């Protein structure tokens, strides 16, 4: 049987099949990583909101995946990924040369803070646990890299020139894999027992460590297998770094920065749970000591990149889910409205718009002439109806400038923004499809690959259903819009529920969406194609951030909610210079735009004051989903 909707499968977390993982992995995301040697010697921090692709990026460097890729290197499906990894230096002459060892901070570490240990002891024990787990991960990966069996072949591994006082009491010329394994297992077990018992007993063998010695211990020239250097490059891959407490993260990050080891460290953390200051400080200062990759920002710089990435991911998964019958997912989505399908609505819109335009130009000779000259002739295609509506917007703009009505002024030629505004107005007034097509689907995904997969899953399910019934064509714009609308609402609701303050976030974003909507639907479309964001003056944004640092103040709660929204990708932050002033603009996630019938393009925003946002946090404003119970 074909795979059950591969758009719903999360290969990053499926340990069972490296081949499946590779098959669906698009190499485009590798362009986000720093280039050159920096990747293999510095600390690289990879940040994104949930579902951004961090774990998949780390998994790519694990031995099982790299070995599988080298085995399939001649197959078309893997050639581009293989080439990229060769260019990066992870693979050379058809074999892996970089060895990744992956650990997750999702479990256990945080609980050490609950033990009530004094004077930094909790952090030291955290470091000890990390050392033990990094050791075990490297030993496991080393044997996988060598094609040996773990733990049976530990005796074939050794570390030379070992500086590991907690293990050996000092310097050791040689440590075997078995020595290291025994030490790490005992250490981990003792610490976990301490966590289970919720206390550190006086006779406990647990000791804290002051340094992350496990990383320099396993430098590439020191780790041998059967007496020979195993890998040219070693990278420790730390996932779910947000699983640590703030104090733990700060201490460990400082330690990693100052390590200066030949073993690289890649660290992945979710944006949502960063300390509030971190989220607000993002992008404000350059990183000298480490590289930071913001996956969403990488895509947002040029959204065509994300589109290419999403296309690649989608095509791979569509092929998997259809026994390779479908080679292009985008081709399954009709890029245009089918005029025959919506002919009745087009006819109604055509008649209505002609009537409106005639009524408003009546009595003004110039405008009447303009109308006669410019209005499109039948047949009433979607393009012609769009043109008519754009004419009405231009007319509204002109009529607002009262002097223009009296003088002989012809409305200007069409602009792209007005055309898109016209299309949106037709959607809200006459229910003509707007949210359809692969490009718009990618935009609704808001540069988050998991969001894209969730939206695309619905469309793909329908494509499969259509094919099952013997209909092999593309999905019409009407069907696409219905499915995207349903999926976007679900995605939006789920994202809100993941925030620590879902009710306040719902109030804030609901009010913001309504505000954007009001600004967008003004008849003259002054901010064509529409408003989808709000802007805060840089100084006000700074005031909000200061309240985090102070731990109090008028904006403390607002800062918390904003930080959560940014971290969850509910709001997309960017900096803009406008009229000689610096602004921080917060755009709505495009899923909210679908819900509130807002345009999908970025660009339109309106300034607000921080105190307005504080008001928007309060109940009494409309919920994001009218008809749902209001929360006090």
């Amino acid at each position, binding site marked *: *049987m074909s795979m059950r909707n591969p758009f719903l499968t999360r290969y990053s977390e499926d340990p069972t099949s490296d081949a499946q993982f590779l098959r669906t992995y698009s190499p485009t995301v590798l362009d986000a990583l720093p280039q050159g040697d920096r990747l293999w010697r510095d600390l690289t921090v990879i940040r994104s909101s949930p579902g951004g692709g961090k774990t998949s990026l780390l998994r790519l460097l694990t031995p099982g995946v790299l070995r599988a890729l080298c085995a399939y290197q001649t197959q078309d499906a893997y050639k581009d990924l293989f080439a990229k990894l060769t260019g990066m230096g992870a693979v050379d002459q058809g074999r892996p040369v970089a060895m990744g060892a992956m650990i997750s901070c999702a479990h256990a570490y945080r609980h050490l803070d609950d033990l009530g240990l004094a004077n930094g002891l909790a952090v030291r024990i955290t470091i000890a646990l990390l050392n033990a787990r990094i050791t075990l991960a490297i030993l496991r990966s080393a044997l996988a890299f060598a094609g040996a069996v773990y733990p049976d072949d530990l005796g074939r591994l050794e570390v030379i020139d070992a500086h590991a006082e907690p293990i050996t009491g000092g310097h050791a010329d040689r440590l075997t894999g078995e020595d290291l394994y025994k030490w790490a297992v005992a250490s981990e077990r003792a610490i976990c027992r301490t966590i289970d018992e919720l206390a550190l007993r006086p006779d406990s063998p647990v000791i804290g460590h002051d340094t992350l010695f496990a990383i320099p211990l396993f430098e590439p020239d020191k780790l041998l297998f059967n007496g020979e250097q195993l890998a040219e490059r070693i990278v420790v891959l730390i996932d779910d770094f947000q699983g640590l407490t703030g104090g733990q993260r700060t201490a460990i990050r400082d330690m990693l920065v100052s390590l200066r080891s030949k073993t690289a460290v890649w660290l992945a953390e979710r944006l949502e749970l960063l300390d509030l200051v971190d989220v607000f400080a993002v992008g404000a200062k350059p990183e000298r000591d480490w590289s930071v990759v913001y996956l969403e920002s990488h895509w947002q710089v040029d959204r065509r990149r994300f589109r290419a990435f999403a296309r690649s991911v989608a095509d791979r998964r569509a092929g998997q889910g259809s026994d390779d019958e479908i080679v292009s997912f985008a081709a399954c989505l009709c890029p245009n409205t089918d005029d025959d399908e919506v002919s009745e609505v087009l006819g109604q819109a055509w008649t209505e718009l002609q009537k409106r335009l005639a009524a408003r130009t009546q009595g003004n000779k110039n405008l009447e002439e303009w109308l006669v000259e410019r209005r499109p002739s039948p047949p009433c295609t979607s393009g012609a109806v769009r043109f008519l509506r754009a004419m009405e917007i231009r007319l509204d703009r002109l009529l607002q400038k009262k002097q223009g009505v009296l003088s002989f002024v012809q409305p200007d030629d069409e602009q792209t923004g007005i055309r898109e505004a016209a299309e949106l107005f037709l959607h809200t007034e006459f229910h003509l499809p707007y949210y359809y097509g692969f490009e718009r689907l990618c935009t609704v995904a808001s540069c988050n690959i998991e969001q894209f997969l969730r939206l695309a899953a619905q469309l793909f*399910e329908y494509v*499969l*259903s259509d094919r*099952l019934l013997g209909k092999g064509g593309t999905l019409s714009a009407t069907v696409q819009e219905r499915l995207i609308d349903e999926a976007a609402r679900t995605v939006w609701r789920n994202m809100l529920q993941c925030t620590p303050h879902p009710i306040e976030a719902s109030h804030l974003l609901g009010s913001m969406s309504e505000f954007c909507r009001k600004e967008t639907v003004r008849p003259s479309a002054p901010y064509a194609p529409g408003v989808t964001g709000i802007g805060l003056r840089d100084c006000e944004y700074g005031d909000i951030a200061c309240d985090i640092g102070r731990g109090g103040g008028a904006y403390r709660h607002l800062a918390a909610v904003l930080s959560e929204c940014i971290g969850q990708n509910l709001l997309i932050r960017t900096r803009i210079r406008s009229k000689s002033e610096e602004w921080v603009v917060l755009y709505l996630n495009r899923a909210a735009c679908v819900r509130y019938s807002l345009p999908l393009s970025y660009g339109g925003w309106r300034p607000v004051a921080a105190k307005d946002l504080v008001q928007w946090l309060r109940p009494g404003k409309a919920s994001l989903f009218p008809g749902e119970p209001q929360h006090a």
Partner: protein
Amino acid sequence: MKDKLAEQLLAKVLGWTADEVMKERPRLQAAAAYKYDGYQQFEPGMRFVESLAQWLHQFGDIDERQAAYSFVMSRLVYISSEEMAHLVRTAYPDYMKHEIMRHAATQLGLSPYRIAAISASKEFHVLRRRSLFLGLSDGAHTDLLRRANRDEIGHEQVYPSHEMAPGRAEKLTEKLKEELASPKLLGRPPTIDEATFRLVFLLDDFTGSGITYLRAKPDGGRDGKIATFMDDFKQDGSPLSLLVARDADIYVVFYVATHRAIEHIRRQIESIEAWSEHLHIRVCHRLPESLSITAERDPDFHAICAKEDYFDPGLDDVHGAVGGESFRFGFSGCSLPLVLSHNSPNNSVAVLWSHEDTSFPGLFPRVPRHGEVGK
């Protein structure tokens, strides 16, 4: 048949639109993968979706097909092999061990909740060793029961049948004497009375009506598996009578049983004074009365079951006559919507389990136990 073809047939049979396919296909695939494809009596190569499509195709019109489909997706109860295995594995610690501990508590004069004290006592360990576990059919899975509780139950306490061969009974007795004499238990040779099993657990997987286990005969006697066991046990000189203590407590343990079956067996037991004090029934998973298909609860599907076109009269045989009713609504009219992964019970409505070579093959065709094949 390839899955895709089966899904296409199903969509055609039910007249689905693309929206309906989109909604139902994930549900069907999940249900099939999780449980229904594991039905052990499908023909080689047959899977659930194909069987469903062929079954629905037999119904006369679209309304009946949709009613039948709706019934399968919302009312069918399917107990998978994993779920049955779970019941088997947990039957001892959750039910039988409690009985042993209760008896030990009585001997010790302790409250039954003093579980630490009871389980540490020699009385408990001796009583546990003097417990016998017998299967009433293959469905008892005595092998699995023993393996899942290997620290508690030994090989010499478990037998797959309630009909004991003489040689086997002797061996069990010898082993019992040997182990009771060990220092961990009595620490001395047991007396004649002590060298018998004090508790007996009769095990089986499922009962729908209870009739095959215990029923009244026209002459006032009793018939059925439990009656056979009790008669054998009470008969002087029989292997069982030598193996099991005269005042033994007998527990009939079902992994799954309907409320109706439990009540029936209970009433039968209570009607026999000689049995009522020492014969008990225990059930791991009880199926409520509300599970049965009735005209009030399931009018559309009940009407389908009642239709002549969808029942092969050849199914009614002498074995069905024991239940007193036609097999149309299941043995003894149990009218269950139940399927067990190893074989559909005939207590369920016939449209679900009719044999493959009848005029209306069921969704989960049953292999008959008594050699009756579609007369």
